[in-house]
């Protein structure tokens, strides 16, 4: 892999940066939050992103996609991360969409992926449960076999964009006990299915999330994605890819949090001088920059690993997630500290970055979890 942007990728980065600065300032996130917007993001903007071809980046041309890869996706997600755009990329493109791309039948792909690419369909994955913590294979939701298919029962939490999703990929247990790695199957459940109850949640970053209760929801054989009992590996692969995408977004966020802090250091005057002239703050700013640069290299490498179907992808996904989680929190904490009192006020944007950094850290596992996974995958 080469860790540089091609000319096309440079161009995409510029388009994305321009789009974000014109249409998606952080004030938009604030407005959606304060208005308790029922959708939680801008459908209009989502449609525009579709028109720009962004939603189709990782999908093949046969479903209307661009046939590009995560190297390109990362460029767009980084730009969106800069201003914390709350559109359902992670849920729709990186979770639901990737499950269908990697595990769906042609029929399933033809039904769902074109509307995803067009921005007409929101997908998500319901995998987390109250006891899951970061263990993707710890699933209590059951799928009981019936003559005409399955009945799903269980409880999922923090389902991204759950309350606006047209369909959910539900991870359920078709065999084995709660902790077994095998015996998981993925099911597609449509909005409004009888027995499906969705309650919106409120998290610190004010992005969409929902509780999902399944009370004997009926699904037919055509709604199974991938092989029965073999959904665990498929879903873990999807989460590895989604993790790389999430980290690209995190990179953008920490970049912006750092940049706004460096700017503040240059302009805020105390004791008659800009506070950025104080060496202790300088050195800490340099440390932030180092963490940022290492994070950037790692995001680039991991995105290319997805595109190359690199056998080390699981390790690199853990590498990038551990790194971006730690760097994200460090940079957000330093951003607030260096902003001083105003950094603690809701009125300033910097707190939004801390809140998002924490939620992003928790999503798909925190740094400690991924260091453990890296060590395990490395054979120690």
């Amino acid at each position, binding site marked *: 892999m080469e860790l540089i942007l091609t000319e096309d990728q440079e161009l995409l980065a510029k388009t994305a940066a321009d789009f974000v600065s014109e249409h998606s300032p952080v004030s938009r996130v604030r407005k959606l939050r304060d208005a308790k917007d029922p959708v939680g993001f801008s459908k209009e903007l989502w449609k525009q992103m579709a028109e720009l071809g962004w939603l189709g980046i990782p999908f093949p041309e046969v479903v209307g996609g661009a046939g590009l890869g995560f190297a390109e996706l990362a460029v767009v997600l980084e730009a969106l991360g800069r201003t914390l755009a709350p559109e359902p990329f992670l849920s729709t493109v990186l979770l639901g969409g990737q499950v269908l791309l990697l595990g769906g039948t042609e029929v399933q792909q033809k039904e769902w992926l074109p509307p995803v690419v067009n921005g007409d369909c929101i997908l998500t994955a319901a995998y987390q449960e109250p006891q899951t913590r970061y263990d993707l294979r710890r699933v209590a939701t059951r799928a009981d076999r019936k003559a005409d298919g399955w009945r799903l029962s269980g409880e999922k939490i923090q389902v991204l964009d759950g309350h606006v999703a047209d369909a959910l990929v539900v991870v359920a247990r078709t065999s084995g006990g709660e902790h077994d790695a095998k015996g998981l199957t993925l099911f597609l459940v449509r909005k409004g299915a009888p027995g499906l109850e969705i309650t919106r949640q409120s998290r*610190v970053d004010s992005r969409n999330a929902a509780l999902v209760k399944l009370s004997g929801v009926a699904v037919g054989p055509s709604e199974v994605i991938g092989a029965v009992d073999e959904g665990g590996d498929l879903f873990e692969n999807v989460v590895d890819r989604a993790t790389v995408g999430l980290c690209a977004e995190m990179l953008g966020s920490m970049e912006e949090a750092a940049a706004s802090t460096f700017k503040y250091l240059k302009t805020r005057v105390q004791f*008659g001088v800009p506070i950025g002239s104080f060496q202790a703050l300088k050195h800490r700013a340099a440390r932030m920059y180092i963490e940022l640069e290492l994070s950037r290299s790692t995001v680039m490498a991991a995105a290319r690993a997805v595109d190359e179907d690199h056998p080390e992808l699981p390790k690199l996904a853990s590498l990038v997630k551990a790194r971006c989680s730690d760097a994200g929190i460090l940079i957000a904490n330093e951003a607030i*500290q260096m902003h*001083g009192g105003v950094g603690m*006020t809701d009125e300033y944007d910097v707190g939004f970055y801390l809140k998002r950094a924490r939620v992003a850290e*928790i999503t798909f596992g*925190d740094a*400690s979890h991924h260091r453990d996974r890296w060590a395990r995958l490395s054979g120690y």
Partner: protein
Amino acid sequence: MAELETFRRETRDWLLKNAPPDIVGLPANDLEGNWGGRRATYAVPGMKTWLLRMAERGWTAPSWPKEYGGGGLAPGEAKVLSQEMTRLRLPPPLIGFGLTMIGPTLLQYGNEEQKREHLGRICRGEIRWCQGYSEPGAGSDLASLQTKAVRDGDDFIVTGTKIWTSYADKADWIFALVRTDPAAKKQDGITFLLIDMLTPGISVRPILLISGKSPFCETHFESVRVPVRNVVHKINAGWTVAKSLLGHERSMIADAFGGAGAGQRTARLSALASLARERLGDARGQIADPVLRDRIALEDMDTRAFGFTVQRAKDGAKAGHRPGPESSIFKVYATELNMRRRELMVQTLGPSGIGWEGPGFTESDLETTREWLRSRGNSIEGGTSEVQLNIIAKRVLGLPD
């Protein structure tokens, strides 16, 4: 000793007879304590009686001179009173910045007229005070404050903005630093002024923090007329008054973060360790996540070590030593301990530690998350950690400027 024991017996009898039953066991924290003031409200009816009876005896400010409304108690007596109140689980009848901040300041720097005017009203809980120091442009560099007070006959005309004025929206009076000589060098042109919040031209706006609601406010002064007799100490000599108050504030913060009694033997699991055992599970008697367990042990151990350090300073003070340099570390270390602890709490909660409100999160988890967010300000408010480290380097280690 015998006298003190007599005092103890009499005090206990008096307390038993006069404390209304509905106040027993009430907590004494900021949220639930009695702040008094013109607009005081009492969640528990007995609290008003309790305040009146204690104030009558001077026991809202037990150590202050009797002539100003205090109890005139000797240190030993005051300690006995406090012990007996703790034993009977009686909350203080009154809390607030009048008793802890402006009162002691007036006792030291106020003139006779000011003491007579204000101290009694503080002791009786009639007036609630707030503090007007920081400004949008004057944070760590407090002396660069710009709120100006221009002399006009027997008055000053005050114009400017104060921030971080805790509870300004509920306070009756404010003690503020204002610039009375713009030509003087920084600290030299500052005056310490007492201002009635009912004076025309004052407006208050509560500040929302990243953790949600807060007691902080932004307070605007638009040509506010304040009598010159409300100057404490001398005109242009307010910095002296402010400094003595600031040191006091910092040690209060260290106390508030639990530094006070942490040297004592901790009989039970720390809240953090017990949360971790509950949430992460238990493997052969140990918190199941060994890496987090190691961090928790470090946090608990540092807390204990810090507690010993506070105790050392107190034992030294009791033995009549002047405060040693070790006390310079209290503010910075107490806040860092708390920040690390909050961070470990949300890390322990994991996916349960990122809720803002509503379904899917328990009340206690939501509170933990908000407290984590709130804690990020600990190393900023009351003098940033950076300023504290500068002070240690300069005053304690003698490193050059």
